[in-house]
C-alpha cells in the first residue's frame, strides 16, 4: 500500500511493475540517435490519416496495441487507462482510445503527462484499486504547430531557444509482477512559475518545476543524487537543462553528470536542426518506453528518477501576456524492489 513520506512523496510498498511498454515515432525520430530502439516507426507522419489530429490518435492506438501485445494482454484485462496529450480537450488520447473499451481517465499535464499518468497508474495498482493500469501519452509536431504556433508552411524563423515537438507516443502497462522495472516511489509536483513569458523558451519556464520536484523528492526520501544511476528529465532541452543544474546547485544539490534530458537524447541537435532539443508529451514518453525501460529491465540501469516536465500555458494565456507555469512529476523506477543494502 502506498505510504506518504515527507510532504510530497508516496512510497509504493508493493512496487508495481511496468509489465510491458511500446514506443512509436516517425521519420525525424528514426533519424535521431534512438531511432533503432522504437517499436514502431512510420516514416509517413500522417500515419495514413487525413488530418494531423487523427495521425496523433493513430499513434496512441499503435503504441497501446504494441504495449498490450508485447505483454499478451487484451484490452479487457486493463482496469483503467490514464492518458493525455497537448491537443485541446486531449483529443489525441480520446480518439486513440475510443474503440478499446477501457475505463478512461483523461489527464492534462502538458509534457509532464507521461510521469503523471505513470504515477497514477502505479498508485492505482499499488493500492489494489486496479489490477492492471495503462499510462499513455502522445504528441505530434504538426498538430502542435497548428494549435500553438504557425501553419506548417508559414515562412518563419525559430529562435535558438525553441524546441521541436516530438512526433511520438509511448504506452506502459503497470501491474503486479516479479519483473523489473519496478515503480518504487512517486512525487506529484506543484505548479511553479518564475515569470518566464517567452513561449519559445519552454525549457526555462519548466526548469524551476523540475528543480523543486527533484529537491522535494530527495528531501522526502533522504537520498542524494549519488543514490541514482540516472536523473532523467522530460523535455527541458539545452537551456532548461543548464538552468535546472544551476537551480539545484543553489540548493546545494549536485547532479554530477547523472542528469540527462529526453529532449537532448532523442535528436542529434547539430544534425537535425531542432535548436534547443525535443519537446512534447511524446518526447518523454517515447524515450522512456524505447530506450530507458528496456535498460532497467535488463539491469544495465539500476535506479532512475524519471521527471517529466510540463509547461501549463495555453495559446489564450500566452496571448493575454500571462507567464508560463510549469509542473514536474517524478517517478522512481528501479531494477530491484529494495534499495541496495536495505532488505
Amino acid at each position, binding site marked *: 500500500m502506498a505510504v506518504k513520506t515527507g510532504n510530497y512523496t508516496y512510497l509504493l510498498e508493493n512496487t508495481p511493475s511496468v509489465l510491458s511498454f511500446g514506443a512509436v515515432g516517425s521519420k525525424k525520430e528514426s533519424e535521431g540517435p534512438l531511432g533503432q530502439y522504437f517499436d514502431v516507426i512510420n516514416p509517413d507522419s500522417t500515419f495514413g490519416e*487525413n*488530418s494531423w489530429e487523427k495521425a496523433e490518435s493513430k499513434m496512441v492506438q499503435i503504441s497501446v496495441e504494441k504495449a498490450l501485445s508485447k505483454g499478451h494482454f487484451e484490452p479487457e484485462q486493463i482496469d483503467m487507462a490514464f492518458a493525455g496529450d497537448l491537443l485541446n480537450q486531449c483529443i489525441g488520447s480520446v480518439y486513440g482510445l475510443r474503440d478499446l473499451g477501457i475505463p478512461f481517465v483523461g489527464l492534462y499535464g502538458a509534457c509532464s503527462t507521461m510521469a503523471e499518468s505513470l504515477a497514477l497508474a502505479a498508485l492505482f495498482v499499488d493500492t489494489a484499486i486496479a489490477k492492471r493500469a495503462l499510462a499513455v501519452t502522445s504528441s505530434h509536431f504538426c498538430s502542435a504547430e*497548428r494549435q500553438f504556433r*504557425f*501553419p*506548417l*508552411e*508559414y*515562412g*518563419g*524563423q*525559430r*529562435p*535558438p*531557444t525553441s524546441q521541436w515537438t516530438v512526433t511520438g507516443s509511448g504506452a506502459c502497462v503497470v501491474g503486479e509482477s516479479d519483473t523489473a522495472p519496478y515503480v518504487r516511489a512517486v512525487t506529484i509536483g506543484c505548479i511553479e512559475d*518564475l*515569470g*518566464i513569458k517567452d513561449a519559445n*523558451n519552454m525549457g*526555462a519556464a519548466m526548469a*524551476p518545476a523540475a*528543480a*523543486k520536484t527533484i529537491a522535494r523528492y530527495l528531501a522526502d526520501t533522504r537520498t542524494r543524487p549519488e543514490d541514482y544511476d540516472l536523473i532523467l528529465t522530460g523535455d527541458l532541452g*539545452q*537551456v532548461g537543462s*543548464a*538552468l535546472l543544474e*544551476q*537551480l539545484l546547485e*543553489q*540548493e546545494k544539490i549536485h547532479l554530477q553528470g547523472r542528469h540527462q534530458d529526453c529532449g537532448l537524447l532523442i535528436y542529434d541537435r547539430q544534425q537535425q536542426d531542432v535548436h*534547443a532539443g525535443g519537446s512534447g508529451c511524446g518526447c518523454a514518453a517515447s524515450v522512456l518506453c524505447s530506450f530507458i525501460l528496456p535498460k532497467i529491465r535488463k539491469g544495465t540501469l539500476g535506479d532512475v528518477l524519471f521527471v517529466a516536465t510540463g509547461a501549463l500555458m495555453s495559446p489564450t494565456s500566452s496571448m493575454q501576456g500571462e*507567464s508560463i507555469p510549469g509542473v514536474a512529476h517524478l517517478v522512481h523506477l528501479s531494477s530491484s524492489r529494495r534499495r541496495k543494502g536495505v532488505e
Partner: protein
Amino acid sequence: MSPTPREYNKMSEKAAPNSKLWKNVGMAFLVGGLICTIGQGILSWTQWLGLSQEEGGAVTSIALIFLSALLTGLNRYDDLAKHAGAGTLVPITGFANSMVSPALEFKREGLILGVGAKMFSIAGPVILYGISASVLYGLIIALFH
C-alpha cells in the same frame, strides 16, 4: 532558496543562446535583395514588352505573389524562409505566404470556417493596420496640404 522572478529572468537570459545576428542579417539582405531584383527584372521585361510603368507594376506584384503561393504549396517557401528570415518576410512574397499557408493548413476544417476564416489569421492584422495607417496618412495630407 529559490531565485526571485527577476533573478531567474537574468539566469535564463544568460543560459539562452543568442540568434546568429550577422548570419541572419546577411541572409535577409541577400535573399530579400534577390527577390527585389527578380521583381525589377519582371518590371523591366514587361515595360520592354510595351506595358506602362503602372501596368508593369501590377504584373510584377501578381507574378511575385504567384511564385510565393506556388512555392508555399510545394512546401518550399518555409525551407527558404528558415534561412532568409526577414528577407522572405518583408517583400510581397511574405504576405502571400502568410495567406496561403493558413489556407493550406486549415482546409481540413472546411471552406468556410477553415480556409475562409483562418486565411487572414496572420495577414489580417497587417491589412487592418496597413489600411488604418493609410487612412490616417490621407487625413493628415488632406488637412495640411
